[in-house]
């Protein structure tokens, strides 16, 4: 019993010591840098989605220098942990918080309502609040261009697409890719494989291998790792990269092109407006005009004249002369979804749950 008592006292002493340490650290300082919180669904080491976000964060760090301090949290699951992470960031003094995955949005809205003095930026969702914005980019435009290149280079016209989840974002991107492909080769087909995960190297690779075994010769992807592309390249087939420049990572020209993000271009102005108090809630959907999205350099395997054709299409989009979901659209069951001459509204794009003609697979 005595031993027990001694031990308890000891434990108490250690606890109080540890707490005391904490008190010291918590002392407030004057002229603190502006604190920015960033929450990633995966680790920036994934070389994919979170990596590109971190590139944006790094761009902001370089731009603001020691005027800001960035607090990162990685591998935050899409459950209560996300709310806890955001609150901890608020407690740590963050004035603006970014979170990069769709399912964070409920938790972010909840925390935003409770902390009106902090700004919240949610990537890829649709919820907002006076102190919460959502932002995203028109990646489907880039996917259209990459679809053109894929169809041009495919000897068989059989293209494959590894999709993470059947969310409107993925469906929209896939439809963009399919429309681009069929603009070049009207007989092209796009076969979909769902992995039901954003990030799982082995599942993603399995999906790609399954498609390659069916004789598909270009693999495009909406996934966070380079594995699908690697699987294709290893078999001497073509791949379309996403997020980062896969040709640079894999070092193989069979990666025809990569569709890329430039998140810094949104984050920097957002942080700046938060710092000088001009921040406003919005639903932002950036495109080519502000360089939120872009294509990587195209592989030399793609004929020069065709590269020029792709660039010309890109210019048309940038100048607002044309967009991907303009004109007549048929879904893959033959139903006409949009009549000729119509331009699809953003709201429809944001809830897209059907595939265009030429896609082999179902959304559900």
């Amino acid at each position: 019993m005595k031993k027990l008592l001694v031990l308890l006292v000891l434990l108490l002493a250690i606890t109080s010591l540890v707490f005391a340490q904490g008190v010291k650290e918590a002392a407030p300082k004057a002229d603190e840098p502006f604190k920015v919180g960033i929450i990633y669904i995966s680790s920036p080491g994934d070389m994919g989605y979170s990596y590109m976000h971190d590139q944006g964060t790094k761009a902001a760090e370089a731009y603001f220098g020691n005027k800001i301090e960035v607090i990162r949290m990685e591998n935050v699951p899409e459950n209560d942990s996300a709310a806890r992470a955001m609150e901890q960031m608020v407690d740590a003094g963050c004035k603006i918080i970014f979170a990069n995955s769709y399912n964070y949005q409920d938790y972010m809205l909840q925390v935003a309502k409770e902390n009106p003095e902090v700004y919240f930026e949610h990537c890829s969702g649709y919820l907002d609040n006076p102190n919460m914005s959502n932002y995203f980019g028109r990646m489907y435009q880039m996917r259209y261009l990459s679809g053109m290149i894929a169809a041009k280079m495919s000897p068989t016209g059989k293209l494959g697409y590894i999709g993470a989840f059947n969310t409107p974002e993925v469906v929209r991107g896939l439809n963009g890719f399919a429309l681009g492909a069929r603009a070049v080769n009207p007989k092209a087909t796009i076969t979909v494989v769902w992995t039901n995960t954003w990030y799982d190297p082995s599942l993603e690779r399995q999906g790609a291998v399954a498609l390659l075994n069916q004789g598909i010769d270009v693999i495009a992807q909406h996934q966070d790792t380079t594995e699908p592309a690697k699987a294709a390249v290893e078999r001497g087939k073509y791949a379309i990269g996403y997020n980062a420049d896969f040709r640079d990572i894999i070092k193989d020209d069979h990666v025809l092109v990569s569709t890329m993000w430039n998140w810094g271009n949104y984050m920097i102005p957002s942080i700046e407006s938060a710092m000088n108090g001009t921040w406003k809630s919005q639903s932002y959907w950036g495109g080519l005009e502000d360089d939120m999205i872009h294509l990587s350099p195209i592989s030399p395997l793609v004929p020069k004249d065709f590269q020029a054709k792709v660039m010309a299409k890109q210019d048309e989009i940038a100048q607002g002369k044309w967009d991907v979901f303009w004109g007549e659209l048929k879904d893959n069951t033959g139903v006409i979804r949009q009549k000729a001459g119509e331009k699809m509204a953003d709201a429809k794009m944001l809830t897209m749950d059907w595939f265009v003609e030429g896609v082999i697979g179902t959304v559900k």
Partner: protein
Amino acid sequence: MRLAVVKRDTKSKSMAVLIPLISFIVSLILGAIVLLASKSSPLQAYSAMLKGAFGNARRFQYTIVEAIPLLMCGLGVGIAFRLKFWNIGAEGQYVWGAIGITWVMQFWKFLPTFMLLPIGLVVGMLLGAAWAGIPGFLKAQWSVDETLTTLMLNYVAIGFAEYLYINAWKAPYGNMGTPEFPEEAWLTQVWGKVHSGLFIALALVVILWFLLYKTRWGFELNMIGKNPRAARYQGVSIKTNIVLAMLISGAICGLAGSMNTAAIAHRLTKGVDSGYGFTGIIIAWMAGLHPFASILVAIVIAALKTGAESLQIAMKLPESMGEVLQGLVLLPLLAGTIFIEHRLKIIKQEAQ
């Protein structure tokens, strides 16, 4: 000189308290070594963890919220463990609880809104029980090994839930997950983030303690767990009790799932399989299957989780470091349980 592990002649009650304490200190020291190796101050790191878990009312609330499903899953698997029935399927039973309440909320439109929550909880409980009953029945009837069946059924349940929230039950225009439950049918919050599920969990602790330690049924479970042949010879039906214990075990885990869904996500969505069922195994084990001890253990484990999260903010340590520290704390604690029944003995070698 050499060391040997010898079985204790008697079970020591003070050891049951002392050993976890010592193990805890050992784990703190181990953690400190790792932290020092990665050039961070252990004292600051531990302080950050402590503050992350208990630093203010809100943090404390989150730790409790995290502890509730852990406690319930610990209680649930604990009942099966008493029979030496290794139910490692709590995760799947939890997921079925979440599926059950979602089913009620989304499709039982004929119910008045105020009935959705209680009926949803009950349906979740029943589905969890049914899911646990399968391996229970297989074991009782044909001695099918339960570790395999319960483990594999987890993946079936998780996969099925995924199919539901991605495909079949997906909200019409939302992205991932089913539509949100009507707000009136959410589990109410009683203190900040802490929801009324806390009372259900605590009530369960008392009920289970009473059942296990005071009733004839508890006595029978104890007999089966410690010597099934003797129990059968005393007229206790092992088959019936295995199925019964698994039904209760699954019902509690299922209730944990339906309750947590009604309290936090308010929908079936990604993250429903967040490991409470698996961590429940650790809790049951460390608490020595005792319901009251489970409360403390669940809070400690929840605090480890919520505390480790704050390491990223306070110490700018990568997320993996938090996981390493959690593992380092658990390892000596679990290894320490062996010394409650065994002791170390120093054997002196005679001089030759």
